[in-house]
């Protein structure tokens, strides 16, 4: 079991993920750690951010006093619109998502299975109010789906598992996982570690992973 302090920080995880996004990509960032990616766009690249509530070309948070309650992101936080932005309605927005026009969706996760199944919307506990938002549409429609998450829960349980125990967001939808410990690819053979955070041993990653882990760190470098 690992503690949260080991390996990459949240900002470093976001920075690491951002390196794998091509220049000019259209990207939808989920709520939470995914939002940090906007702070780490590599030099010389431009990403265009889509927010499913009807804006392509989302910019950073506004200066204090410039907030517009009618200019928000999917998390209902105040945002801005960059030069070259466009507003559109919800059906058009999800046409972009479902139609495969977005290059990348970055989401948080409660669990990811070795087959790429994602659970990130419900604990399935009776009495809890479920809320799904646009996650099921994103994972079903966007060309690539990256997950960014702590490798383990606060209680130290692995989030990368053989089978998700929580209700699924989508089956076989995750392409890559960026954690505090490693970058892990979902392959036909299961989880493959393609890069480790500095000072983190493969065995540490494997021990924190609730499913078999293939070592491909050499191949990736």
């Amino acid at each position, binding site marked *: 079991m690992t503690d949260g302090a080991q390996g990459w920080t949240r900002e470093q995880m976001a920075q690491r993920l951002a390196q794998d996004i091509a220049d000019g990509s259209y990207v939808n960032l989920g709520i939470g750690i995914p939002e940090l990616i906007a702070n780490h766009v590599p030099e010389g690249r431009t990403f265009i951010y889509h*927010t*499913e*509530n*009807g*804006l392509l070309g989302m910019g950073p948070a506004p200066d204090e006093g410039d907030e*517009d*309650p*009618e*200019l*928000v992101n999917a998390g*209902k936080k105040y945002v801005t*619109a960059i030069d070259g932005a466009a*507003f*559109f*309605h*919800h*059906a058009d*927005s*999800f046409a972009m*998502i*479902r139609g495969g026009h977005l290059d990348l969706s970055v989401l948080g996760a409660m669990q990811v299975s070795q087959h790429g*199944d994602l659970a990130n919307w*419900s604990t*399935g506990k009776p*009495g809890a*109010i*479920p*809320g*799904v*938002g*646009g*996650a*099921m*549409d994103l994972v*079903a*429609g966007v060309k690539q789906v990256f997950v960014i998450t702590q490798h383990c829960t606060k209680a130290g349980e692995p989030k990368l598992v053989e089978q998700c125990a929580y*209700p*699924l*967001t*989508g*089956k076989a939808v995750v392409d890559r996982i960026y954690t505090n410990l490693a970058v892990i690819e979902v392959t036909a053979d299961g989880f493959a570690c393609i890069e480790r955070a500095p000072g983190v041993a493969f065995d540490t990653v494997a021990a924190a992973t609730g499913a078999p882990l293939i070592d491909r760190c050499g191949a990736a470098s």
Partner: protein
Amino acid sequence: MISKQVASAAEAVADIPDGASIMIGGFGEAGSPIELIHALIDQGAKNLTVISNNTGSGEVGLAALLQARRVTKVICSFPKTANSTVFPELYNEGFTALELVPQGTLAERIRAGGAGIPAFYTPAAVGTPLGEEKETRVLGGREYLLEFGLTADFALVKGQQADTFGNTLYNKTARNFGPIMAMAGATTIVQAANVVAAGEIDPETVVTPGIFVDRVVHVVDPLVESKLIAAGVSYP
């Protein structure tokens, strides 16, 4: 001379009967037609089915309509907004039922309803609890769910500007569900901060063509939900 303008929000919602299905625009507070919702609370219709992305915040607008025990069913994608305590109580009590729909499926069902498409296939929610008990079909080697178009007796929509023919423009991300709900409401009511004569809006820039709008209400200075909540307001 055609004019769809009515004198007040109260007049616009006067004929909404008990048991009506009502689409209510907005994504959180952005685009929520608060004045129309408050007029509906005053009007008293009950046993309503509300189709809206969320369930409102605080004790104003959509949350206030729920709190007044007028809504027995909600069709939405995300009922767990920040400051949303009203819906969870009504849901756990069993007063208000919930049909949870993925956001893109909700949007497409509304658009389909407005466009006369009775049903369509979508990949979203396949293999998940929200896809259980739904008809599936493999097309081109991929599995899809059959989803049905959604219409409503009324649609309440917040525009920024409307003309007397009902042509409507929106403000930024307050556009969200407005244009498609306008299509899917049998009677669509638009509140707009600015109402102008037909001809004042460039026909190239119209977002909702007037054919989808039945009534236009001029609401000069619309309330801001987050400000009301910050001020501790509850409605009525």
